[in-house]
């Protein structure tokens, strides 16, 4: 059925040959003139960058970048690190993996940054990881609950957000001690890694002799929690272990309120201790939620450094768990950078990071890294929701 006139013979051979020849010749020329890579370090500046969701479905992520930027400004105003100011470029990916990859490539190849610092969002975090793990550029402290970040350990990737499995084990331990639940249910979001977390939860419950009465897998895109709550209500567990995003968990808790049932306690991961959860859930979470947090809430006096820095950076911004986390990462980075000395290189930074031992930020548990330990935060605060606020229940609980 192909028109015989359209066979290759009818196109002028000159056209095709010219095109092919030009392509090959220019490739050779261009390859010869390829540029050599640089560091992102100049005489008075260290340029770092990240991709995170400033807009889009998880726009709360913008706060992580804000918290870090605020701390960097605070440090820059005091003279910078070893005479250099830190320039932090935040590119928006609106939670699109395609954009995240594009942003990271741009930061590496066009802006030539020293390191990819911070970030937020699981899917985009995975995308960024897929690019940086094949490179030598450091990828530091993203707000990403992805086990693959540090499992297996990658030379240039460091995290200060405990793996969800770690968080859950510690949280269940803590809650079991204080509330002694007899039965429990799991509400798990269907994202990458969820089977591992479910397994950790089940093991913990078994070890503590708590009976598992219900197990639910929730789709990211299903806002409707009614059938899930109804099902759980029927089983009436004492404790619910909830692994979901902050809005998702808030919806669940509100639905519980609507159906007039709640368990004795709800625990989960650090998404439950972020202000966005509090804002969305309102009073439905009062005296119900006890969950781990990486940092102290901004209302705590020891968080003053970060809160003040944020206010100095932009008075309109509201401090939250996310801004605190950004601040923590920034503080850790600055400390490692100071230890590197006056001639920073990527290799030197990685070496110093690996030597970090018991770094105390003042508003988080201690951070330690090692050549085979790239998740550095070793303890998390137990936080409860009381009177519409987050309340720290005690000293940081060590993770296993």
């Amino acid at each position, binding site marked *: 059925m192909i028109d015989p*006139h359209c066979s290759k013979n009818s196109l002028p051979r000159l056209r095709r040959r010219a095109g092919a020849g*030009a*392509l090959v010749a*220019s490739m050779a020329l261009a390859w010869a003139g390829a540029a050599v890579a640089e560091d992102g370090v100049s005489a008075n500046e260290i340029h770092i960058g990240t991709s995170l969701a400033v807009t889009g479905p998880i726009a709360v992520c913008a706060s992580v970048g804000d918290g870090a930027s605020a701390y960097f400004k605070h440090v820059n105003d005091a003279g910078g690190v070893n005479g250099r100011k830190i320039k932090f470029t935040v590119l928006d990916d609106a939670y699109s993996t395609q954009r995240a990859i594009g942003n990271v*490539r741009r930061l590496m190849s066009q802006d030539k940054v020293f390191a990819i610092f911070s970030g937020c969002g699981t899917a985009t975090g995975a995308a960024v990881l*897929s690019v940086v793990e094949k490179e030598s550029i450091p990828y530091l402290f993203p707000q990403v609950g992805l086990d693959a970040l540090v499992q297996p350990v990658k030379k240039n990737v460091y995290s200060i957000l405990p793996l969800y499995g770690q968080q859950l084990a510690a949280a269940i331990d803590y809650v079991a001690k204080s509330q002694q639940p007899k039965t429990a249910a799991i509400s798990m979001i269907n994202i990458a890694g969820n089977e591992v977390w479910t397994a950790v939860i089940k093991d913990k419950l078994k070890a503590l002799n708590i009976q598992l009465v219900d197990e639910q897998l929730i789709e990211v895109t299903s806002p409707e929690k009614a059938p899930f709550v109804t099902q759980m209500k029927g089983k009436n567990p004492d404790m619910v272990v909830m692994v979901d995003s902050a809005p998702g968990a808030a919806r669940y808790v509100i639905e519980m309120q609507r159906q007039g049932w709640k368990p004795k306690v709800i625990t989960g991961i650090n998404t439950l201790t972020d202000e966005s959860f509090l804002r969305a859930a309102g009073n439905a979470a009062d005296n119900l939620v006890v969950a781990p947090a990486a940092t102290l809430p901004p209302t705590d006096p020891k968080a003053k450094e970060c809160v003040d820095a944020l206010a100095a950076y932009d008075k309109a911004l509201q401090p939250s768990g996310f801004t605190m986390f950004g601040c923590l990462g920034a503080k850790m980075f600055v400390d490692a950078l100071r230890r590197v000395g006056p001639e920073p290189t990527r290799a030197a930074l990685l070496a110093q990071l690996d030597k970090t031992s018991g770094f105390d930020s003042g508003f988080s548990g201690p951070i330690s890294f090692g050549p085979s330990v790239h998740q550095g935060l070793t303890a998390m605060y137990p936080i409860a929701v009381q009177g519409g606020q987050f309340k720290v229940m005690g000293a940081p609980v060590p993770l296993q």
Partner: protein
Amino acid sequence: MGDVPFGSQEAGHTSPRSRVLLTVLVLVLVAPLFATGYMRYVATLWMIYAIAAVGLQIPIGLAAIYSFGHSAFMLVGAYAMALAIMLGGWPVPIAMLAALVLAALVGALLALPSLRLSGFALAIVTMGASSLFFQSVKVFKLTGGPQGLFLPEFAFVKAMDGRAFYAICAGLMMLGLMVSHCVESGRIGRVLRASAANPLMAQSFGVHLMRVRTLAFVISAVYGSIAGSLLGLSTSYIAPEAYAPDLSIQVFAAVMIGGMARAWGPVLGALFIVLIPELTQSVQNLGAIVYALIFIAVSTVYPGGLQQMISGLRARLGKRVP
């Protein structure tokens, strides 16, 4: 290409006008080889989207079949190739071929209801199919679930700082353009146009409607699959979100904004949809608004797209070939 009627090429000589066009084209295609790695990456994306858009032009422009299922073909292209490579250890070209065959099958399947349904209903079905494929790959562990698949990085993708891969994509795009041009101006094109204009009459002239529509879908599926495979290779990470139903609408926008009348219209449209997010990086949402406004403007007032605007401009500047 351009306004030069196809017949004048047969004698084997080129008009001055098409020589100029050719030079411009070669320059544009060659430029990214000299740019930074990132700009080359963007140009590679342009080539990939161009392949997808040129493929979508065939059912939409010729057969008036509004297919919103293109993301499904691209998804199959990416995932099938990835699975063939990771599970079967197949070399990349063979894996892409296998994905292509699978996508063609899907295309044929989508064509099945096309006789019983009006244009609008078929459009809805293709939308549903996109959504179905997208949701399905997120469910099964085989396809990596919500996280997707991490591909090993291939030497030819990284070679010469991305120049080799760019050349491959550009080459495939040119090939795709030529094939599309052949289809468009050949018998298949005539048959497709006839089936769109007046199905009953076409049938009475011996056109087998079912076969023709299946062909349109299958051809677009092949293009989509190749584009999807290349997209997966370019990032070595296949995320389900990158192949969501939204992608169908983006490629559709590329075809529409670029213009459906000429083979190179979709290439221009693809450039447009790749550039807008880049140029508006710092004000991302403003970019989306500009993009949507142009989409509405083009579909409302300038149905021929950028291609029509450019051709019109040239005509008014008196460069029409007599």
